């Protein structure tokens, strides 16, 4: 097991190295000059040249890459061009929003999807099944910014229960922070939940056809208990896989929702960094994302092993 994890970590590091080269290369071919962008339409050529020198943009590419990688190894992500503050600080600030948001939506989508999926599977082919799966399909097809705006109008403008957007920071009290993340996490969770519910249902249906379900029922256990105690755990593997993918998405793929709720999350940071050609920020965030995907993958694999003893040994 330890060897397995070590192996995965080593491969993960290699992936990161590869990622760093790819990302750096892509950033180089991205058209647009960060210095020019900072000066806008009014900058003079000298100012531009000065700024470029100040930002280190006139160094040769290989040198800049090595410099950057060297920095990464010592935990120095460099300084943002636009914000001129350390990238690591920026990422840390954004993670304080994105991480709780991702976790909240993940929890929410799990808490919605599992019961719905179980419910539908238990009533396979009957009206409740058709209805809940139909709703799930709608959940996938409805654009989430649309849904988000509806939430805002309902809960912020009309009912005034929750803020329409923004994030007060964790210093202003945990509850205030959580309050501002409730609507965004609902907006994010719903389509995810729809997908997850479908997966849960079909995984459960596969499992319910297995012989050991009949064995369990032959012990005199009621249906519900069989479903929870015997079927669910066996159906967890596809569900976990999807959850892992969703986490990766939720961490930085939520630009649109972050925009609608004007949350200072990672998604907006990277989006903004790309449009403003804040290359060093883009590079830093991408490295973080790749690393997190690797970590999540390892964790999902470990979770498989927890769920399924057969995989414990295979690992």
């Amino acid at each position, binding site marked *: 097991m330890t*060897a397995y994890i070590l192996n995965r970590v080593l491969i993960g590091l290699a992936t990161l190295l590869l990622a760093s080269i790819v990302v750096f290369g892509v950033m180089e071919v991205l058209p647009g000059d960060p210095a020019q962008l900072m000066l806008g339409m009014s900058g003079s050529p000298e100012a531009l040249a000065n700024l470029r020198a100040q930002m280190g943009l006139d160094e040769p590419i290989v040198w800049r890459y090595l410099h950057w990688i060297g920095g990464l190894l010592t935990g120095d992500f460099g300084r943002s061009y636009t914000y001129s503050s350390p990238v690591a600080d920026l990422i840390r600030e954004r993670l304080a929003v994105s991480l709780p948001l991702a976790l909240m939506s993940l929890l929410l989508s799990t808490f919605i999807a599992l019961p719905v999926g179980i419910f539908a599977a238990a009533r396979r082919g009957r009206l409740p099944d058709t209805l809940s799966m139909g709703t799930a399909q709608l959940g996938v097809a409805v654009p989430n910014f649309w849904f988000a705006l509806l939430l805002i109008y309902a809960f912020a403008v009309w009912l005034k229960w929750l803020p329409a957007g923004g994030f007060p920071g964790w210093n202003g009290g945990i509850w205030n922070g959580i309050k501002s993340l409730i609507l965004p996490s609902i907006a994010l969770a719903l389509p995810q939940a729809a997908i997850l519910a479908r997966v849960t249902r079909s995984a459960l249906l596969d499992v319910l056809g297995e012989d050991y379900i009949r064995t369990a029922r032959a*012990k005199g*256990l009621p249906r519900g208990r069989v479903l929870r105690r015997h079927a669910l*755990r*066996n159906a967890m593997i596809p569900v976990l896989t999807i959850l892992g993918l969703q986490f990766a998405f939720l961490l930085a793929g939520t630009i649109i929702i972050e925009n609608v709720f004007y949350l200072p999350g990672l998604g907006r940071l990277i989006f903004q960094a790309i449009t403003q050609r804040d290359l060093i920020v883009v590079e830093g965030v991408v490295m973080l994302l790749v690393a997190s995907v690797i970590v999540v993958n390892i964790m999902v694999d470990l979770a498989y092993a927890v769920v399924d003893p057969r995989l414990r040994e295979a690992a």
Partner: protein
Amino acid sequence: MSLLEIEKLTLSIGNFPILRGIDLQLEKGEVMGVVGESGSGKSMTALTLMQLLPHGAQTGGRITFDGKDILHATEAEMLALRGDDIGMVFQEPMTALNPVKTIGEQVAEGIRWHTKASRADAESRAAAMLDRVGLPQSKFPLTRYPHQLSGGQRQRVVIAIACALKPKLLVADEPTTALDVVLQKQILDLLRDLVDERDMGLLLISHDLAVVAEMADHITIMRHGEVIESGETSAVLTAKAHPYTAQLAEASAHVPSNRRSIPPSALPGISPSRGDIGPSSNVQRPLGAQSHQEHIKQTSPVRTAAVQSPFSLHEGEMPGRAEGGVTLPPLLTVQSVTRDYAGRRTGLFSREKPFRAVDDVSFTVHPGQSVALVGRSGCGKSTLARMILALDRPSSGSITFDGHRLETSKDRDLRDARRNMQVVFQDPYGSFNPRHRVERLVAEPLHLLQTKPSREERRALVSKALDDVGLKPADMNKYPHEFSGGQRQRLSIARAVITRPKLIVADEPVSALDVSIRAQVLDLFAELNERLGVAYLFITHDLTVARAITDEVMVMHDGRIVERGETHAILDHPQSDAAKALVAAAPDLDRALAARAARINAAC
């Protein structure tokens, strides 16, 4: 009042009738054997008792258990009965256990549920029960998972679950089908002990007459959802009053046309012209037509050769089958073959030591020869077969087939060898891609031919192959799920013979089939051997099969060949412990009946 009374039980799923009026009675402390061909409704009867029928099942008639009307019981009443008063051992031990729960949990679960016992209490009772079925705590702690147990051990866990609460009735559905004979014997002994000890009623479902004869006081014979005959076991089986009973008895003891060569067209059951190869028609087939045999004996040169063939295999350099006095070189030569499986990793730099699945095996097979490879489950038979088929490479040693070195060749260079060597798999259904039609499936090995046949040629070859195995050419447009088990096994054989190979390796080709279909398939093998001169390597743990159609037997144990020789010699006078154990454990109808008769006599 009987423990269990079933009257005029009918069952249909959708509009398809499955059971058509079953009557059955079982007393306390009695063993009732239910036999019948595959699909006759045995398992469905058992599931009806438990009210665990699939969706859309409709029942009629009456079932009374211990005075309760089961068919009209509410779900709540059934929950109280299931597991507590009625225990059930399911047909498939490999899949009947939840892979993610420990065996302790699974056995204790029912105890806790029904008796509301504390966890610790339930676990100690579970431990006692597991100990009872031969899984002592010291060697098999409660924390084991099913995958850490062998098939036989799992079957015992299933029995432990079923018997945990000392049920009044135990329904055991084919409790030993998937097991080798030695394990089978252990399990049957266990069941008998439980019956004796607790005065439990046992409904033992099987398609193996020998097993039932050994175990059951009474027997019920089913076919097509009906009870054909029932009564005291030895009486029913010796009298064979009903023709179907007679057929079953005969089929189960069937030693097929070992040297009798009957062209399929001469057999009404597999006549291509009749088309219908349903099992119902098969069992009506007269077996062993002596006059035919005599006739063919004189006209078949291969047969003559076979009879003359001397078997002295001991140094692996037996002279080939002589034809017109010429000595042929061996078709297959296996020389000191060993296969190690890498052990599991246990740490960063350490692994378990490798597991030797096949250990220094050498033998030869000559053209037209039929060799059995027998041995207990897990002894390495399939591993060896895979290497012979060049689907796996030996760790050391060499394999030569038809002049080709297999273990060193690249896949591309193996085509010639493969053309002359085909395989019939254990599970006929699993060996077909469910999405292809028969034409494509059977034609698959044609890929090995140097010149690709045209579509017409291909169809001709396929219909010839189907004809060879007694199927209709029209069947080539069907999908595998549209066939019965026996028919699928024939398809599998058709695929193996389409390139007219010199050797067919058959890995447990009949273990999944019921006796009547098994008889039919064995005949087919023997017949092909005669007609096409195909050599066989038969892998099985069933000695009856080996006895039926092979010239020679190799007994394998823990990766080694421990004994080999002429079939009858070995099976009648086994020398090695492994062979002795196999022979001793093999159930035999006649022997069982004799023993039963002796017991009854003694009791009187």
